[in-house]
């Protein structure tokens, strides 16, 4: 057994998506910690946007249960109205956005709205929040979710947050100005996307699992990226920082 949890590895993978100096639209839960980790390791100049109206260049000094927690507001560079932060996103000022989802499909479309018949769903999920906006407008999208066959579906019942739609040039066709998922970070591995077709490809598998296990837990025949490799393990430094951020393991255990 590895000395880290899948969630800890997901945080590490998410942090590695952040490049230094980037403006990052930080989502709920694990990305809150990933932003802190990236800032304290390889991306000290990254800037975080939080949809409720915050901009920070330093991560919160305390664990965040929600992005509106008081420690995330004190020390913010800017505490403004949501529309201003969404406006930065809409202008193409966010290099990377993080979102979660209940279901993802072969083309990276996410459902966080309703499973089953729209009018009589079997499961009513909470909804988009800012997810659909981030998926529509960020230059690059990273998705974080648990990996099982129920969640990884050939086609989601409801596209809350658009990925590559039906593939190909779909995003351009429907009028989206940019973006699309670059990574789907799961409990089992990391998916990338074929730049031509927009189809998900397995880019890396976590050290504690296997390609076969991932394929068996994916609801469509998951193709492999040409450079498929095991996910690099968290470094001790990364784990130390994550555990400093989330000492009780609220999000990462």
């Amino acid at each position, binding site marked *: 057994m590895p000395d880290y949890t899948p969630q800890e590895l997901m945080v590490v993978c998410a942090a590695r998506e952040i490049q230094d100096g980037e403006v990052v639209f930080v989502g709920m839960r694990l990305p809150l910690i990933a932003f802190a980790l990236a800032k304290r390791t390889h991306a000290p100049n990254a800037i975080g946007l939080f949809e409720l*109206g915050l901009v920070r260049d330093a991560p919160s000094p305390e664990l965040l249960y929600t992005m509106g927690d008081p420690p995330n507001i004190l020390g913010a560079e800017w505490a403004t*109205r949501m529309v201003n932060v969404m406006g930065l996103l809409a202008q193409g000022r966010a290099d990377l956005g993080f979102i979660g989802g209940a279901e993802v499909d072969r083309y990276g479309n996410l459902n966080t709205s309703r499973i089953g018949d729209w009018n009589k769903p079997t499961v009513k999920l909470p909804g*988009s929040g800012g997810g659909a906006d981030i998926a529509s407008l960020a230059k690059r999208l990273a998705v974080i979710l648990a990996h099982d066959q129920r969640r990884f579906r050939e086609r989601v019942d409801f596209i*809350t947050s658009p990925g590559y739609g039906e593939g190909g040039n779909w995003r351009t066709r429907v009028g989206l100005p940019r973006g699309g998922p670059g990574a789907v970070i799961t409990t089992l591995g990391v998916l990338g996307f074929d730049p031509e077709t927009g189809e998900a490809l397995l880019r890396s598998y976590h050290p504690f699992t296997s390609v076969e296990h991932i394929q068996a837990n994916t609801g469509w025949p998951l193709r492999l990226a040409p450079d498929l490799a095991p996910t690099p393990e968290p470094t001790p430094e990364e784990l130390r920082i994550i555990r400093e951020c989330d000492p009780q393991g609220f999000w990462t255990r």
Partner: protein
Amino acid sequence: MPSTKVMTMREAVERFIPDGASVALGLALEPLIPFAAGHELIRQQRRNLTLIGPISDILFDQLIGAGCAHKVQAAWVGNVSEGLAHNYRRAVEQGIPHPLTVEEHSNFSIALSLLAAGLGAPYLPTKSLLGSDIPAQNGTFRQSSNPWTGDPLLLIPAIRPDVTVLHVQRADEDGHAHAWGSLGICEEAALAAEGIILEAEEIAPRETLLSDPNRVIAPAFKVLAVVHEPGGAHPAPVQGCYNRDHAFYREYHQQTRTLDGFHAWQEHWITGVANRQEYLARLGSERWDALAIKTHRYAAPVDYGY
């Protein structure tokens, strides 16, 4: 001068939020949620409300479970630190306690709806949500195109709530209010609404509020009622006043999995108390004190003199 707008939450809800009203609340997202107003709506058994907001951190779920809501116009209804909202699920999936009309939004689209209303514009255009199924489900948006370039655009129609309820750190009796921290779409909702109800941690003199007119959140002439309601946002945090009661959200999540569980929770925290003071007494001083501000951090001085 008009007489004071200060009144009890009971009176404010009785007078200004009738059955069938559309009400925007929970507009700062996780902070400053006006639970006191929501609970009073439940105690007064308000029916057929339209609930408007970006995300609702368990408040909408309570109003839905109590049967107050007929329609929801929101981007997200759940429990931010815990996950799904059980009453919302029961209402949409099973029609319990009765069917609920949901117009799905994103945070940006609900913000633009309210901003449009405040600008006196019939709609605002955006490229967000193109390709999402939200527009088709929502049914009120309109697909359009940029008349200069032909590019696809989505038009988000204005939403004009009857009442916007804001929890604020302080207000005066005329309805001037200061709120600070993360404000989400409080301003947009206040300017979009026909009228505003304030629930305030503190009632301060007019001079205090007017000493910083840039921080005033909306024009006082739109304010219908000012309710002095310390602790009215619990379990949500109020910057500089009290912190978030994370455990309360967890308990709510666990205790409301079943309908019976929700009824027991509601009886304990809402219908079994007469007002916010009794709620806080039930919460207990130990739990309340644990949420107190540990370190005060004051804004740098600002001189409005001349």
